[in-house]
C-alpha cells in the first residue's frame, strides 16, 4: 500500500510499505478514507521532534472503515464495516490514567515507555505516526492502518455525512476545545489566542461557545485572521502592531484573563533579531524550540489568569519568563489532548449542527500529493489552512 513516509529532515515521500496485519486480538485494520496534515506533522517533518527514523509512516488524523477486527475488539462491539475516526492516541481504557480521563498519558499503549520516561520522566500514550518516543507506531497517512486497542481507541461515527464533518474529532477539534476548557472561561473573560491555524481557529470557536465575552485572535496571515474574524473574534495583526502593548490597550491595561498558545515549537518573531537568536540556539541544540508565543502569552496574561497551551512543545525552551508566571500567580495548563474525554460531547454538538468544523478545509488532494502539500501548508501558500488527503 501507499503511505507518506519520513525519510529525513524535510524529506517526505509517498512510498510503498507493507500492508498492516492484525498483530493482537485487540487490533483492527482500518481502510483510510480521509486523513489530514496536522501542524504538529510539520514539527516532525522539520526535525524538531527527536527519534523519528527514516521510513516512518506519518499521520495521526485519519478516519475510515473497519475492514478487519481482532477477537477481543470484536467482543467489545467493533465490527467490520463500522465507520470510525481514529484519534491520534491509542488508549487501553483500563489503566489508572485512562480511568481518570487522562487518555493522552495512558500507561499501557506506548510500547517505547522506557524511552518516553528517559525524555519526559514518565510515559505518554502511544501515538500514531509521531516518533519513537510515543511508540513508533505507523501513522494514518496511508491506505490502510492498524489500530491497536481498537475498541477503546476509535470513535464510531454515523454512516452518513461527509468525512470532513467528523474527521477533525481525531485531533484538532478536541484540541481546540480542550484548550478552551482548560482556560476555565467565565462570561466576563477576554481570551487571547495566539495562532489562527486550525487548532487556534477551533480554540476561538470553542472559547466563544463556552461563553467568553471577547476573543482576540493573534496572527499575521491575512486569510487566517479573516477566518478568525468570521468566527466572531477581534483580530490583532502582529505584523502591524506590537502584541503586548496592543493587548494591554485592548484590555484596560491588565491584559486578557485567559491566554491560549496555539502555536507551539516553531513560532516566529517577535522581531528578526530575537528570532535569529532562537534559531541559532535551536541549531546549536541549546534549546529545541522557539517558544515565542508562550513567552508572549505569559507576559500578556492578566495577573491571576490562566495560560492554556495546546501548541506542541517537544523538549527544552530558553528564556521562558518564569518570574512573570510565578509573580502574577498564573496557572499554566497544557498537555496532549485527551480526545476521548471530549469526543462524545463534540460529536453530539456536530450532529446537532452547533459545530460545523468543515470551515477549516482549504485543500483536498489525493494521498500521493501529500509531500508537496506539506510544503504548501508549511509555507502558508495558496491560502492553505487545512489539507485533507484522500488515499
Amino acid at each position, binding site marked *: 500500500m501507499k503511505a507518506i*513516509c519520513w525519510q*529525513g529532515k524535510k524529506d517526505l515521500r509517498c512510498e510503498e510499505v507493507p500492508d498492516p496485519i492484525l498483530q493482537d486480538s485487540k487490533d483492527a485494520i482500518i481502510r483510510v478514507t480521509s486523513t489530514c496534515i496536522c501542524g504538529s506533522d510539520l514539527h516532525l517533518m522539520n526535525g524538531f521532534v527527536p527519534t523519528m527514523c527514516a521510513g516512518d509512516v506519518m499521520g495521526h488524523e485519519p478516519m475510515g472503515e473497519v475492514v478487519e477486527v481482532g477477537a477481543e475488539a470484536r467482543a467489545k462491539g467493533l465490527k467490520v464495516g463500522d465507520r470510525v475516526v481514529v484519534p491520534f492516541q491509542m488508549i487501553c481504557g483500563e489503566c489508572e490514567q485512562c480511568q481518570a480521563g487522562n487518555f493522552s498519558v495512558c500507561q499501557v499503549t506506548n510500547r*517505547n515507555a522506557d524511552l518516553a520516561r528517559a525524555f519526559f520522566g514518565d510515559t505518554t500514550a502511544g501515538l500514531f505516526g509521531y516518533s519513537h518516543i510515543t511508540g513508533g507506531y505507523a501513522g494514518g497517512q496511508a491506505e490502510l492502518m492498524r489500530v491497536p486497542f481498537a475498541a477503546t481507541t476509535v470513535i464510531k461515527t454515523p454512516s452518513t455525512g461527509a468525512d470532513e464533518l467528523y474527521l477533525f474529532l481525531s485531533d484538532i477539534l478536541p484540541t481546540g476545545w480542550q484548550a478552551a476548557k482548560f482556560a476555565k472561561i467565565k462570561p466576563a473573560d477576554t481570551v487571547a489566542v495566539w495562532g489562527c491555524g486550525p487548532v487556534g481557529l477551533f480554540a476561538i470557536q470553542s472559547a466563544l461557545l463556552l461563553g467568553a465575552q471577547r476573543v482576540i485572535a493573534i496572527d499575521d496571515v491575512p486569510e487566517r485572521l479573516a477566518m478568525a474574524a468570521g468566527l466572531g473574534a477581534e483580530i490583532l495583526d502582529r505584523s502591524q502592531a506590537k502584541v503586548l502593548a496592543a493587548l494591554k490597550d485592548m484590555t484596560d491595561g491588565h491584559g486578557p484573563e485567559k491566554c491560549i498558545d496555539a502555536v507551539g515549537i516553531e513560532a516566529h518573531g517577535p522581531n528578526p533579531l530575537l528570532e535569529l537568536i532562537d534559531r541559532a540556539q535551536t541549531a546549536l541544540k541549546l534549546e529545541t524550540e522557539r517558544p515565542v508565543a508562550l513567552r508572549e502569552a505569559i507576559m500578556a496574561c492578566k495577573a491571576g489568569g490562566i495560560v492554556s497551551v495546546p501548541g506542541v512543545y517537544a523538549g527544552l525552551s530558553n528564556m521562558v519568563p518564569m518570574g512573570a508566571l510565578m509573580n502574577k500567580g498564573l496557572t499554566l495548563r497544557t498537555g496532549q489532548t485527551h480526545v476521548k474525554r471530549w469526543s462524545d460531547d463534540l460529536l453530539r454538538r456536530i450532529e446537532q449542527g452547533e459545530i460545523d468544523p468543515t470551515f477549516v478545509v482549504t485543500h483536498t488532494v489525493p494521498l500521493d500529493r501529500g509531500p508537496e502539500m506539506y510544503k504548501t501548508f508549511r509555507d502558508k501558500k495558496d491560502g492553505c489552512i487545512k489539507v485533507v488527503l484522500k488515499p
Partner: protein
Amino acid sequence: VSIQDPASPRPRRKTAISGDRPATDSAGPEAARRAVLDKNTPSRTFRLPNGKTMTLSTDRVRAKPAVTPQISFLLGQNAIGLGLWGLLAPKGVNRFLGLTNSPQRTQALFGAREMATGMALFSDPTKALVLWARVAGDVFDIFLLRSLTRPHNPKRGNAKLALGVVLAVTVLDVVAAARMTTVRRNGQGAGS
C-alpha cells in the same frame, strides 16, 4: 531500530533482539505493555550505562530507509566543521597545506563557503542545488590541492591527504546531488 536524531540518547550496547524483554515491573501497565509486543513488532533491548535495560520497538509497516538524506545531512555537518576551521584558524589551514603566500582571507573565504553550504544542508538536506554547488566547489579544491602535491611543497603529504579526502567527499556530493535531484516524492521515490 536506528535512532536518527543526534539529540536522542543512544544506548551503548545491544544485549538481545526481541523476545528478551526487560524486567522492570512484573505487573500492571508494564506487563500489559509487554503483552502487546509480539513477534511482528521489530524490537531491540539495550543495556544502558546505569545497568538497566531499554527496549525500543518500531513498526513493521514502514518504508525502506533512504540513505541520501542522511548522507546530505552528514555532508552539511562536515562542511560546518571545515567552515569553522577556515573562518577561525585560517593560518592553521595555510600551515597544514604548506601555503606560504596565500592571504588569510582566502582561507576565510573557503571557510565562509563551506559554512554557507553546511548551514543550508543542515537546515534542509533535500536542497539538491546546494549539493551541486558543493560539487563545483569540490572541483575547484581538487585543482588547487593537486598543485600543492608537487615536490616543492614541504607539506605535500598533508596536501595529498586533503586531496584524498576531498575526492572521497566529491564522490558523496555527486551521488547525493544526483539522487536528490531525481528523487520522486509522489509514490516512486523509495530507497533513494
